[in-house]
């Protein structure tokens, strides 16, 4: 936030917050009006007020589930971050390892996780299977982006390091990893959303057989019981979780890059 923002910039900033809120209010109003006007029963389409009340009434149950899903997502994300960056560095350091393993990383990525999940559930405990799913979906964007970053080092800087006889480790730590940071962070932002997708996909695959009680499990369960308001309430919690993850990672990105990277700069120069 630059102190010397012009009135136009300030208005722009306000509009960016106000307009989506207006759209949300309009949407909710239309939704409420439609449900009332056509007397739609709550087991077909509950009105927003009922969804909100359900969210509050079932909070002890849903809050518990939120915690379960959130924990899996964060764990999956952290493992994906470590795995993606680790593999990218390994591939960058050794061509043989890259040639040997890269095709399998691609296979893991292109096979739909929803199809892998049931198989994983056969062999693994459900919490582990969910975690593995979250990892499988999330690690690839980190790997791909970090690899791109590690290969995008300024060639003259590379020459400079060579001129001063820098070791491989020093080149990696002082040159390649900092160069790759913006790319890595872009990968992590994608991975954050995807690890939630992976966790949800695995919970749904586990279905009613599942012993866990994540939000996706609540959605499936409420569906069987025709408890549509609770389905909506759980869905809203999932969306909010996704939004929070996205903005948290955007903030990390901004804080890490704001001093030097073009992508994090704002305003006139």
């Amino acid at each position, binding site marked *: 936030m630059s102190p010397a923002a012009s009135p136009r910039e300030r208005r722009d900033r306000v509009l960016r917050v106000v307009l989506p809120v207006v759209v949300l209010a309009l949407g909710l109003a239309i939704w409420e009006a439609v449900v009332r006007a056509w007397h739609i029963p709550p087991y077909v389409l509950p009105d927003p007020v009922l969804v909100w009340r359900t969210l509050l009434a079932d909070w002890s149950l849903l809050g518990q589930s939120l915690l379960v899903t959130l924990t899996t997502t964060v764990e999956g994300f952290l493992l994906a971050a470590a795995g993606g960056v680790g593999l990218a560095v390994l591939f960058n350091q050794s061509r043989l390892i890259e040639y040997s393993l890269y095709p399998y990383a691609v296979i893991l990525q292109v096979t739909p996780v929803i199809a892998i999940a049931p198989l994983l559930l056969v062999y693994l405990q459900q919490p582990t299977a969910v975690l593995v799913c979250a990892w499988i979906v999330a690690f690839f964007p980190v790997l791909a982006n970090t690899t791109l970053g590690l290969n995008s080092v300024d060639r*003259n800087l590379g*020459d*400079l390091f060579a001129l*001063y006889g820098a070791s491989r480790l020093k080149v990696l730590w*002082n040159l390649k990893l*900092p160069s790759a940071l913006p790319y890595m962070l872009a990968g992590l932002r994608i991975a954050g959303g995807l690890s939630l997708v992976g966790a949800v996909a695995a919970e749904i695959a586990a279905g009613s057989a599942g012993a866990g009680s994540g939000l996706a499990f609540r959605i499936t369960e409420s569906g069987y019981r025709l408890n549509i308001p609770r389905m909506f309430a759980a869905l809203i919690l999932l969306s909010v979780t996704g939004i929070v993850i996205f903005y948290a990672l955007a903030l990390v990105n901004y804080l890490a890059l704001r001093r030097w990277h073009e992508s994090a700069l704002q305003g006139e120069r």
Partner: protein
Amino acid sequence: MLQSSAPASRSSAMLVALRGVAKTFPNGTQALAGLDFEVRQGEFVSLLGPSGCGKSTALRIVAGLSEPTAGAVEWVERTDKTERRSRIGFVFQEPTLMPWANVRDNVRLPLKLAGARGGEAAARVEAALERVGLVAFAGAYPRELSGGMRMRVSIARALVTEPELLLMDEPFAALDEITRFALNDDLLQMWQALRMTIVFVTHSVFESVYLSSRIAVMSPRPGRIVTELAGDAPYPRGREFRTSAEYAGQCRRASDALGRAVAGGGR
């Protein structure tokens, strides 16, 4: 006065020489052929030639960043690569700074890579920043600086190891004239103060005449030295020299030599 093929300072000893150097790139481009070039201790020698004549390649070979396909690089004493490193500074065409590090950390890089200890390194970084007049900007990031200031940081980084030989690859080509003139003067001052040797690659006749104690004119690709001109106007040189008839005359002769080199492939 300027005489063809006369070394500027006959007395000073050789520092490094390229002997019959040729460079052919894997794609078949022949950048250099039969290049003979001696650098003498303490001189300011310019490699002057048209774009794409292999000047930069020659400089990279001196630095050890590129290996010649034929011929040899001869150093005055037999030194291995490791020793040579501490003797060379290199300034690229672009400032080539690490955008994620501030000015101080950029200048400190060569010392850090050499494993220098904190206190002594800090003092040398301060001294290098002082030399280029950027002490006040030590905490700034490269993107916050002007093009001229970035180039000063790049020069400070090259000087922080106190090299014997400073290699410069068209360092001021991208700068505006006012900034370029200021950096020319500062560079000459540093050269005299630090008593180092400078090899300066440029395609600007005016810049090479203003700066150099000797000019080696290169032919178009495959590049080799076709003429040498001595720039024996006394140092320190300044505004007065830049506007003198002597300077204009030397520029004309250098320009003619370059013209002949381009037209005749040097013959």
